[in-house]
């Protein structure tokens, strides 16, 4: 098990090296750079920037150096000093500051959504499988498909309008105007809670609907297996039987995807965040891409890739802990 872990960690480092190179390559691919974007913006306002200004700007940001020099400078700063470079469009603020500002809320929002989804979807999914073709199952199936079919942004707009029209709530954002820039206190926390449920509901809806369907399908695969009948023949009460055997088995595929949640915690729901003007990381990434803010975007891609790779490792380890068959395969070689 230990040698397996060591091998996986080594592979992880190699993968991340390749990923960082590839992501830096991709963000430097488009013709032009941040300075040419600046120039274009100036031209659209009818101003002309002097060539010497442009050259000076490029030299200041190191944009005139060859690709590998830029990459090495970027990656060594990250590894040695935790310095992700500066975001051009944000008055050269350090990228790390910009991201960390928003990571907290993104993380909190994603985590609450996740817990909401699990709390709703697992019990309904299990019930839906155990009572297959009952009225409750049809109801869950109906709302399941509905939840998957309705675009989130549409739902967001409708609910925001309802909230404003009938409940007098300020649309969008996570805080009422009076708390926007206030320091943290009880009132601000309550205000956040009052605003948070709506994005959680909207973001969680399609996830809930999907997970209900997955839980139901996974469990139906297990529910009539011989080992369930054999366990029933021992005299186990039904609910105990259900939780110990088929539900336990049906969660294996779920655990193999649990690692993908990690990058999701940081990426922030971009579309919903824009529609509802939530201060998460999603809109920041989008604006970075629009402005060719290469260090900002590169850092994002690097962080998300790292989280994906770590998440995959975690999910493999969790699966081994959960399922003895996987565990013994690892030990075998």
């Amino acid at each position, binding site marked *: 098990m230990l040698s397996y872990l060591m091998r996986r960690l080594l592979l992880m480092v190699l993968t991340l090296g390749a990923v960082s190179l590839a992501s830096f390559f991709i963000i430097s691919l488009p013709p032009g750079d941040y300075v040419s974007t600046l120039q274009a913006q100036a031209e659209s306002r009818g101003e002309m920037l002097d060539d010497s200004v442009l050259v000076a700007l490029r030299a200041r940001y190191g944009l005139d150096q060859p690709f590998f020099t830029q990459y090495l400078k970027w990656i060594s700063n990250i590894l040695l000093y935790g310095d992700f470079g500066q975001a051009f469009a944000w008055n050269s603020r350090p990228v790390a500051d910009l991201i960390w500002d928003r990571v907290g809320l993104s993380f909190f929002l994603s985590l609450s959504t996740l817990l909401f989804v699990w709390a709703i979807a697992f019990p309904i999914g299990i019930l839906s499988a155990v009572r297959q073709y009952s009225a409750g199952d049809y109801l869950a199936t109906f709302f399941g498909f509905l939840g998957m079919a309705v675009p989130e942004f549409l739902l967001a707009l409708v609910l925001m309008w309802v909230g404003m029209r009938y409940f007098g709530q300020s649309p969008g954002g996570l805080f009422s105007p009076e708390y926007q820039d206030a320091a943290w206190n009880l009132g601000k926390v309550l205000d956040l809670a009052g605003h948070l449920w709506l994005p959680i509901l909207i973001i969680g809806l399609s996830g809930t609907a999907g997970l209900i369907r997955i839980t139901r399908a996974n469990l139906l695969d297990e529910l009539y297996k*011989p*080992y369930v009948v*054999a366990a029933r023949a*021992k*005299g*186990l009460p039904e609910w105990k039987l259900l939780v110990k055997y088929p539900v*336990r*088995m049906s969660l294996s595929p779920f655990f193999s995807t649990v690692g993908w949640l990690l990058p999701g915690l940081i990426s922030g729901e971009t579309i919903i965040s824009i529609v509802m003007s939530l201060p998460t990381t999603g809109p920041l990434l989008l604006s970075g891409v629009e402005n060719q803010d290469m260090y900002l975007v590169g850092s994002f891609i690097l962080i998300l890739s790292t989280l994906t790779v770590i998440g995959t490792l975690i999910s493999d380890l969790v699966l081994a802990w959960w399922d003895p*068959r996987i565990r*013994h395969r690892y030990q075998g070689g």
Partner: protein
Amino acid sequence: MAASDETVLRIEDLHTHFELDDGVVHAVDGVDLDIRRGEVLAVVGESGCGKSVMARSVLRLIDRPGRITGGHIWVRTGDGTEGTDGMADMVTADARVVRSVRGKRVGMVFQEPMTSMSPMHTLGNQIGEAIMLHESVTKAEARERTVELLGRVGISAPERRADEYPFQMSGGMLQRAMIAMALACGPELLIADEPTTALDVTTQAQILDLLRSLQQDTGMAVMLITHDLGVAAQMADEVAVMYLGSVVERGPVAEVFREPRHPYTKALLRSVPKLGSRSRERLQPVRGMVPHAYRRPPGCPFHPRCDEFIAGRCDVTVPSPVPGPEPSRVVSCLLYEEVSA
């Protein structure tokens, strides 16, 4: 049939139907059986004759869309409070009584040991669970008994095996473990549903030997479901032959196999190769095909394939079980109703 203290299971006119979209399958259609203490009863018949469904009905293990639609299944509950003669009817009993019979009074061994145990739990966990369900023992005591049971069914190094998972063991070893699990609470009846079908031939013989010796040690009754007439002859005291969901002939195994009375039993025995028969002799399969599940023949269900078919009688009248020429036999065939009438 009077119930005696010796009866551990009595099935009366059992009907189990599967209501499917295209029609109703009468998987079990009026089975009468009883098993006395310490008796080994083999239930034989072709695939699809309803023997497994009948066995599962006893413990109410039929999954949707199957349903027991009629009859009684009397089993001993042990506390003497349920029903008549200290026996409870599993068909009408509430869930609590059904659970107290499962595993405690009646143990069951299934066809495929590889899929009948959860791969996520150790043998010790799954066998110990059966003990702790029915008896107030501590975890340590249950574990001790599990190891002892595993040793008794011939598993070497039971201490170590108890901590292993089913996928680490061979099919034969797992079937031994399944038997240990079924016997965990000392049931008075063991239902073995084709216990050797999924195993190779040498392992089959070992498992049958084990079942036989355990039966003799404990004095429990065994209902052995099999399609293998050789297995039935080797293991059983009594045999019940099933065709299309009902028992057509029943009696002591030696008598039935030496001198079959029902035309179906005769045909079935003719289809089995015998040692010492002339090598050029051809085996005779049972004539015709098993009828489609939705289209049961009227009258005697066997009449379209029967060599002794009487037109105007067999395709009209449903035969009822009558004593055969020998008092120990019961036969469902109009030929014998004529004689006894």
